[in-house]
């Protein structure tokens, strides 16, 4: 592939991406899609944000953060608290993102010193500690002001989630295609070599971790405005880490398309089986996940490339 090929390809990607976003924008106004489809797409958008956020750390720096739920949960909780204390909902939403950043700085940064498996179990342990603490401090449900349901229809929530998903993809795209992206790949491939060339691993890992937390926090805020009533402890459960992780791994680590593809897959699978088997879809997801890790370590995206190459070589 030469440079013009590559730029043509990314041009094509922009066009496709733009058309898809346009379809999502026009969908609710042009068709009478109903609450069910909109909520499903809402979930899908939140999954895109969370899996992109997870992938930013997991895929691009190779550090598997098992504590994403803490940042999502803190976004949900703080947005709810700000909102119910009379602050404007949009400001509460933004504040949720910054609370997640603050959390990343206080409890996340110490774990940045950990490498590999230590990082993973450290983040998981802190997320669980936070979940238990939150459960103790806010054992009951939290409510948004009564005026909320007049201001926010399902359509508003839909567009907010769509907007956040698009924002997330743009942020991730800009980041990984900048000099920061080069440094991240270098660090992931060989930390010592990166250091020897003047790349500071800590600085870059921290940057990415903070951005990732910010996105997860915003996702939490959007989720709060969708749900209205929230029970904090449920938003801190590891499921909120595991879902995005599975989506990113199945789709393809370290790519932007991967988490998108994985989210489609995950949300559809969840929806199909939740009608018939309830939580049992996790069994199928789990098996699929294991198979992907073992046989397609770079996810469905890679297998798409492999199949395309196979065709090319045949022709």
């Amino acid at each position, binding site marked *: 592939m030469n440079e013009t090929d590559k730029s043509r390809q990314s041009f094509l990607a922009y066009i496709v991406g733009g058309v898809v976003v346009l379809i999502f924008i026009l969908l609710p106004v042009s068709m009478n899609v109903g609450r069910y489809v909109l909520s499903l797409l809402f979930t899908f958008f939140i999954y895109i944000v969370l899996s992109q956020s997870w992938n930013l750390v997991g895929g691009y720096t190779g550090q598997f953060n098992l504590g994403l739920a803490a940042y999502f949960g803190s976004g949900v909780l703080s947005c709810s608290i700000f909102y119910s204390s009379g602050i404007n909902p949009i400001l509460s939403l933004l504040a949720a993102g910054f609370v997640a950043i603050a959390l990343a700085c206080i409890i996340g940064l110490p*774990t940045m010193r950990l490498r590999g*498996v230590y990082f993973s179990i450290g983040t998981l342990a802190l997320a*669980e500690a936070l979940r238990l603490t939150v459960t*103790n401090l806010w054992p009951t449900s939290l409510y948004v002001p009564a005026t909320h349901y007049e201001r926010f229809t399902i359509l508003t929530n839909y567009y907010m989630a769509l907007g956040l998903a698009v924002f997330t993809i743009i942020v991730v795209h800009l980041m990984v295609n900048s000099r920061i992206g080069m440094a991240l790949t270098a660090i992931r491939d060989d930390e010592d070599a990166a250091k020897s060339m003047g790349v500071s691993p800590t600085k870059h890992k921290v940057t990415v971790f903070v951005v990732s937390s910010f996105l997860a926090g915003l996702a939490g805020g959007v989720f709060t405005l969708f749900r209205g009533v929230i029970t904090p402890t449920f938003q801190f459960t590891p499921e909120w880490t595991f879902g995005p992780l599975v989506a990113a791994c199945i789709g393809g680590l370290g790519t932007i398309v991967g988490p998108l593809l994985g989210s489609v897959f995950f949300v559809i699978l969840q929806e199909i089986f939740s009608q018939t088997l309830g939580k*049992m879809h996790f069994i199928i997801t789990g098996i699929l996940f*294991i198979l992907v890790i*073992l046989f397609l370590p770079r996810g469905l995206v890679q297998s798409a490339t492999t199949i395309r190459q196979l065709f090319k070589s045949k022709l």
Partner: protein
Amino acid sequence: MIAQIIMYGVIIGIFYALVAVGLSLLFGVMKYMNIAHGSFVVIGGYISFWLFNLLGIDPFLSIPFVLVIMFVIGLIVYGLVFSPLKRFAEGQRLGNSMLITFGLILVLDNLVAFLWTSDVKTITAPYSGQVIQLLGIRVPFTSLGVIGVTFAIIGILHLFLSRTYIGQSIKATAQDWEAASLLGININRTYLIACGISVALAGAAGTAVVLMYSISPYSGLEWMLISMIVLVFAGLGKIREVFLAGLALGLLEQLGVFLLGGHYRAVVGLVLFVLILILRPQGLFAK
């Protein structure tokens, strides 16, 4: 009062060592991180539960059955999940073992919920709730039994590792698998057996869990985290130090309960755990 706290700390600490020893063995031998360890604990608990409820087998007497059944499950898990991991380069195996066993959690926990509903289950044996006065301290009878079982199992494990050929090859493989394979040790078979033993030990811990606490399909994570804390306290892969590490965690948790209240029992352990990860990654008791 203080004596009571210490006594509970010791009891729970020894029990924690039992929960963690299988995970430590697996990590020590194969350098795999099995984060589904807690799910195996839960499955072991269910086996004891059903043996007690359907066949009326006393939970303490059911331990040999649990060990055998879980050993076989361990062999199957090795064949299906751990053995294919060898396709990866050595540097990638640890990370991938974590991801794969994470997938295993999804499968096992939901399978358990599917088979046995998500109700909380516990065993009420005739002697449950009986208390023994020991030097003026009240000790539940089941806890005392669990301590006995833990000593027996860790003792047998120690004898097995130091006295039998397979045990010796497990130890040799843990130290240096390349050197071990040069000595003619069948590495695959050693891994297979180590994995079986690890899962069997998790199962035995499950019996203790269902006796002392209760089990439900999604409680595996809690036991996995406790094993992980003990593992890190002991130093990764150190089997002998697990006992001390379990005791340390049990005592520290009870101290936390005393100072902050019961709701923060697990938080104390988890926060200490992260501190130790950062400050002393080689473990509390490593030289």
